[in-house]
Every structure is written in structure tokens, then in C-alpha cells.
């Protein structure tokens, strides 16, 4: 038994180290002043705390706005990916209509094209629509990116719930809408939450569409990639720091929901 415990904690420590070490180095670097980035030999811990890079970072025009935009775009993407994806997933799971199987495959194949190639033709379209360089343009593209995942996962999920539960609710006088909100959604809530988190992460991570579709209203990732060629390395490191820290908090807050993706757990 003891040997087993040692093996487990050994493995656990190994997984943690391989995941966290790069992030640890990033954090050490971003509070060690700008010379540390190029220093040789490297530093492995914070010797003297230096916040100068943070101050510099926030003095750059547009940084705070870009951070705000990133959060806003990701939140709106969640709203649309769930708001449009859940009804569609329900229809795919419960109704029979023409072309249903074709749509399933087609939805999947919208993911077959790299965003970097799709983004430029879309620019022209968004200019014509008058929403170019607004967060709505980015939200629309991110929603399209998150939808396939949202729909296919949720329709899998709705299928796994027995039809009889809903039918009982209908017999007892619920309308279809009521039955969905009172029976289906509470059962599936954990997975829907997990899907929402996925949508948030997809949007928070996406950079190329956001970089092409906006000029002034950039998200933080887009802001950073537009600066990558021109800006010094220490600026990029600090920027990365501010993309990583919110992510860490976010994951720890939502961790409970993440693993209920495929439905109800039996443990």
C-alpha cells in the first residue's frame, strides 16, 4: 500500500511540475525587471522584486481597454454559444427533420478551416455591414468557433436523458418549454456549465480573427500579437503574464464543473 501511495504522489508531482514549471518561470521573469529576460545564466527564483515592467505595461495606451474587451468578448461568446447552441442541440437530439445527419457533419466541418484563412474574407463583409472594428465582429466569429463544440456535446447529452421524464412532464400539463426548463435543464446543468466554460476559453484564446477584425477595439491577445514584432521581449512577457493570471483564477473557480462534460457522474 505504501509503495502505491509513493507511486501516486510521484506521478502527481511529475504532472504538476511539467505543467507548472514553464508558468513559474514566466511569473518569476515578469517580476524580476527587464534585464532578467536576457540574463545568462538564468535566474530560477525571484532575487529582487521589480515591478517596473508592470508599470511600463499599464502605461502603454490601450492595454486596460484590451483587457476589458477580452473579458467582454469572451462573456458574450458564452451567451451566444449557449443561447444559440442549446436550442439547436435540443432539436438535433429530439426532433426528426430533413437533413439532420448532414447538419451534424457540416457543423463539425466548419472547424476544418483555419481561422487565419477565414478571417480576411470576413473583414470585407464586416466592413460592408458596418460592424468592422467593433467587438461584435469578434463575438460573431468566436461564437461560430464555439458553436460546433457546444452543439455536438449538448446534443449528445440531451440524448442521454430518458425521453420518459419529459413525456411525464407534458402529461402533467407542462408546455414543451416548461418541460425543458424544469426537467431537462436542471438535469443537464453541470454539462451546460462545462460547455459554457469551453466557449469562454475558446474565445479567450483566439487571436487571429480578433487581430484582423479590429483596429482600435482589440482584445488582449490580438493586442499582444499586433505588438509582437515591434515590441521588446520583456513587454511580451509582461503581457503574457496578464493573460495567464486571469486564466489561473478562472480555472480554479470553475474547476468543479469542468469534468461533468459528458453528463451526470455516478460517483
Amino acid at each position, binding site marked *: 500500500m505504501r509503495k502505491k501511495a509513493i507511486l501516486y504522489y510521484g506521478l*502527481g508531482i511529475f*504532472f504538476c511540475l511539467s*505543467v507548472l514549471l*514553464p*508558468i513559474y*518561470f514566466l511569473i518569476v521573469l515578469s517580476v524580476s525587471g527587464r534585464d532578467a*529576460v536576457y540574463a545568462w*545564466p538564468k535566474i530560477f527564483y525571484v532575487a529582487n522584486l521589480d515591478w517596473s515592467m508592470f508599470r511600463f505595461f499599464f502605461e502603454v495606451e490601450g492595454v486596460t481597454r484590451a483587457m476589458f474587451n477580452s473579458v467582454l468578448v469572451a462573456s458574450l461568446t458564452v451567451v451566444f454559444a449557449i443561447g*444559440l447552441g442549446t*436550442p*439547436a*442541440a*435540443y*432539436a*438535433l*437530439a429530439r*426532433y426528426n*427533420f430533413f437533413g439532420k445527419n448532414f447538419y451534424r*457533419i*457540416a457543423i*463539425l*466541418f*466548419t*472547424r*476544418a*478551416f*483555419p481561422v*487565419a*484563412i*477565414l478571417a*480576411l474574407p*470576413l473583414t470585407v463583409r464586416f466592413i460592408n455591414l458596418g460592424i468592422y472594428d467593433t467587438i461584435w465582429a469578434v463575438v*460573431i*466569429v468566436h461564437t*461560430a468557433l464555439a458553436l460546433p*463544440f457546444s*452543439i*455536438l456535446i449538448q446534443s449528445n447529452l440531451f*440524448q442521454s436523458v430518458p425521453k420518459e421524464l419529459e413525456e411525464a412532464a407534458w402529461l402533467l400539463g407542462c408546455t414543451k418549454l416548461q418541460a425543458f426548463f424544469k426537467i431537462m435543464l436542471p438535469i443537464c446543468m453541470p454539462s451546460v456549465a462545462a460547455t459554457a466554460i469551453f466557449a469562454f*476559453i475558446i474565445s*479567450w*484564446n483566439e487571436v*487571429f480573427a480578433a487581430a484582423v477584425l479590429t483596429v482600435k477595439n482589440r482584445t488582449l*491577445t490580438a493586442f499582444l*500579437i499586433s505588438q*509582437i514584432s515591434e515590441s521588446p521581449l520583456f513587454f*511580451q512577457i509582461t503581457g503574457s503574464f496578464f*493573460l495567464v493570471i486571469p*486564466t489561473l483564477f478562472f*480555472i*480554479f473557480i470553475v*474547476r*468543479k464543473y*469542468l*469534468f*461533468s*462534460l*459528458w453528463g451526470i*457522474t*455516478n460517483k
Partner: protein
Amino acid sequence: MKPSSVSLETRRVFSAWVLVSPMLLILLFVAAIPLVRTFFFSFTDVSLDDLSVYKFVFFQNYIDFFEGEWYGVLVESVWWKAVYNTLVFALISVVLEVFFGLLVALFLNVSFKGRGLLRAAVLIPWAIPTIVSAKMWAWMLNDQFGIINDILLKLHVLSDPIAWTSNYKTSLFVIIMVDVWKTTPFMALLILAGLQTLPQDCYRAARVDGVHPLRVFFRVTLPLLRPTLVVAIIFRMLDALRVFDLIYVLTPSNESTVSMSVFARQYLFDFDRFAEGSAASTLLFLTICLLTISALRIGKVKLG
């Protein structure tokens, strides 16, 4: 046939369409229309200067024979290099990610103290934006001030620092490694979520019968997990085959790591060869469709 039953059926179809159409509209607008336009342009001689002026050239962008020489995407050696790189990248990274993902998921499925925290910690690389992880690794792998060279030199594994991202021998390997680092958590998450829905009675029965744990894994866990695994592999494969961000940030303009997406993007927007870029995009799309459909067939899985 009673009229009421017809109207019920019509009503059901109608409400299904009401539920589906907003989503279809968005996907049509953002994905399907640009896609069809790209197919269309791949058969013309259009250039980026003016997309409204073009004439049809049929398959000339794909392959063409003119005055004793072959032209077109299909005879470009860089294109075939890109195809090779993409397939190697997709195959190795997906295999490694499934292997490690399964390992991590099985590990995190056993109950022990601090499991909740560890589960969250392991997920972090997946949630960090790709440009950040790519930048971070680019810095760690840098030949002059990279921390990995520093550590390997101190451990006497290396005698001279290596330029990991620009050396043609190591660059594809580095791309795969960073991708595995970043995406294994996603795999582990999908698999772990799948593990939690498996019926527990099978395991109890196996325990009562005293079956060896390895046998339980191959005879019970893997077969039950197959639908989850296939879905996870398909999602992952789609992403791996169109790999772009990672290569774009880690090894820009390095021919030894060019992928099909990178090739298409360069032709479309950087090299001013829009029509051939469209042809490359079309080929990329067809390749991905073909591989995905075969994966669905082989996996015998029903989508959604």
C-alpha cells in the same frame, strides 16, 4: 389521414427549424460562405488587388502543363513538404496526446487527497492562450538566453546550446512537444469526464471475480470509453490538421515546419498568389473532410 396529425407533424418540423436556424445562419455566414467562395476562387485567376476581376482557369491552379513545364500547387515541392509536416504533426501529436491524456485521466480518476486541486492545475496549459504558450516556449527554447539550454548545459547533457526552433532537425519535434504540452490537458479532461459516466457495476463485478486491473482496463474501461475517445480524437484531429498559431509564433518563415494552413495563408495573403492559395485551402479542406469521415467510419461512432 386525419388533418390534425398532419398539422402536428408539420408543427414539430417547424419548431425544430426555429430552434436550429439561428445557429445555421451564424455558421453559414462565418464558415460556409467564405468556404464556398474559396472553392470558387480556386478555379479562377483572381488576385488580391481586385477580387471582382477574374476569369475561369479550371484546374490550372492545382496542376497545369505549359511550354514543357509543370505548374500549380500539386507540383510545388513546398506543398508536399507541408502535407508531410501536417500529417506527421497530426499523427504523432494526437497519438501522444491520447496516450498521455489517458494516463493523466486514469490517474486523476483515483481518489486521493488534493485531487480537486491537481485536476485544476493539470488543466492550466489548455486554458492559456496559444500565443502565450508559444511565446513562453520560444523564450525557454531560445539558443542565446533560453532556460532549457541553460539547464541541459548544467546537467552536461549538451556541450553547446542548440537553436531548437530554427534548427531543421529539431523544429518539427519542438512544435509537436509544445502542442502535446498544451493539448494533453484537453484530452485528459474529455477522457476523465467520460470515465466518470462509466457504470460502476462492471467494476464491482470485476473486483468480485478478482480480475487483474490491467485486464479490467483493456476489457472493460477501453471498450466502454470508445465513444468518448473517438469524439475526443476527432475534435483533436480537426485542430491538429489545421495547425497554424503554434507554427506562426514559434517558427515563423521556417520551411522545415511549414504546415498546410501556413502554406495556404502565405500564398493567399503574403505572396500575392491568391488563386493558388485558394486551391491550397480547398485541398486542405478536402483532406480534413476525408480523414474525419474515415475516422468516423472506423470509430463507428454516431455524432451527437
